[in-house]
């Protein structure tokens, strides 16, 4: 299971990086979103999957799953939601004001 997850993380990272390297601002936002999904999955996998029963609610068990990574992921998901939402609004606003979402025409010195 860990192996499959590792491959999934790799795929998410690949697609995320590919999208970030593209020229359209919208694709870049989607890329960052995928990249953070990848890293959350990585966090989950790193602690080991299903190594015991669920803590507190899982009843009696020999071993328990480490709950800490899930707490971390929750925090990180909330943050990345907020940032992605802000990035979308910013991209839309930039498109309205600057009239383009091509990264090529957004570079350079002051006009």
């Amino acid at each position: 299971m860990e192996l499959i997850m590792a491959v999934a993380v790799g795929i998410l990272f690949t697609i995320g990086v590919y999208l970030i390297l593209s020229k359209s601002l919208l694709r870049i936002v989607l890329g960052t979103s995928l990249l953070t999904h990848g890293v959350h999955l990585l966090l989950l996998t790193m602690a080991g999957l299903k190594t015991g029963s669920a803590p507190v609610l899982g009843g009696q068990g020999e071993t328990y799953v480490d709950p800490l990574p899930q707490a971390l992921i929750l925090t990180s998901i909330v943050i990345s939601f907020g940032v992605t939402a802000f990035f979308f609004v910013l991209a839309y606003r930039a498109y309205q004001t600057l009239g383009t979402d091509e990264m090529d025409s957004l570079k350079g010195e002051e006009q």
Partner: protein
Amino acid sequence: MSNLLVLPILIPLCSAVVLIFLKEKLPLQRLISVVSAVLNVMVAVILVQRIHVEGIQTLQMGGWMPPYGIVFVGDMLAALLVLTTSVVGLAILLYSFRSIGEERERFYYYTFFHFLLVGVYGSFLTGDIFNLFVFFEVMLIASYALISIGGTKLQLRETSKYLLINIVSSTLFVAAVAYLYAAVGTLNMAHLSQRVAEAGQGGVLNVIAMLFLIVFALKAGLFLFFWLPGSYSAPPSAVRALFGALLTKVGLYAIIRTFTLIFVNDPGFTHTWIAWMAGATMILGGLGAAAYHDIPRIFNYNVIISVGFVAFGIASATPDSLDGAVFYLLHDMLAKGLMFILGGIIITAAGTDQLKAMGGLIKRYPLLGWMFFALALTLVGIPPFSGFAGKVLIIRGGLESGMLTLSLIGLGSSFLVLYSLIKMFRLAFWGNEPDREYPKVHIRGVTVLAAGLLALVICMGVGAEQVYSYVSQAGEVLVSPALYIEAVMKE
């Protein structure tokens, strides 16, 4: 246990929340902001004194003993940085009253200002590496808002890049934390230090260390600074001052903390990387500062040079150079705050930020001109100003550890700093006035503010002996991580 540690975070957090509800009441907003900033300075002074007398203070959130639960640790380094941040923050707040404009004030400028401070204080005080990530994000999200507030074309263009680079580095931060947790199974920094030492800092942990270095270097502008000059030029001067004086320093603090506490067992690998990155940063920053002719960019490259210089202090890692790095960090926060405020005043007075369109300002604003000259001497590190002690300590530490090349680069970068600032002084204040009319502006109030900050910088230089007794206490903890671990894990 000391509840004092949470106050620097609680005060700005509460004022930020209250300010949201006072959108249209600008005088009240300003009043609350100032009261909150002054309170923070007072709390920081008490905190520094307490730590000076009683040693490192800790606070366990919710009563969970370390290594479980989140712990706040106030050692001397953190407390001094909190104090300096509160002072610089107060000065920039006062400068904002005159410079930021009602439009931005109405759109929650002060709220974001205080949220940014929450993130900065939190990053300094936390003793948990994931909590550090959270406070980084608090700070960054506030900075996203501050850099884009106003929505000018330039701001929108630069914000998207700033946002992208920070999202990528935050993602790497989480990935690095994940790897670290998988490798050693803890997140408490003191506990991490023990575990990393037990596990032996081999291949895997070195890779994780480098990942952390990349993350923090991106935030601090250490070598990976390509995004910085453009992004930091976009917002108005008060926000530039806030970013230039505080944000990069938080990244540097994180480098200091991780590479003096956690990854200390293989300096031949990690610290060599930091050293070369520091050298490259100083050279490239120096070239940038010398090359440009607009005020924001010259200033931003100066920020980069000082980041490189502090990193050089971290890399040589002798007691002297670490003391020097702390001293220089404190000095640099004050001096860079002052630099951006003075720069902002000059831009207002001249009505442009292009040096080639200025000239002859000294006849109209002599005090401003000489203050800028004094600032230039401060940044270069000429006694009796405050840059001197830090530079001497860092260079001495560098020579002790045999880093001759980097010491020379460090000294050389001082000349480039001098050149860039004197170039500014010459073009802006000397020479003839340009053909166009200068705008008529009142800058007396803000000039007095800048003079106050300059007086503080001079006091720090003249009273270097007294300041050093505090700085050396901060340096002690950096040299022997055992002190930090003992304070956190004792209960």
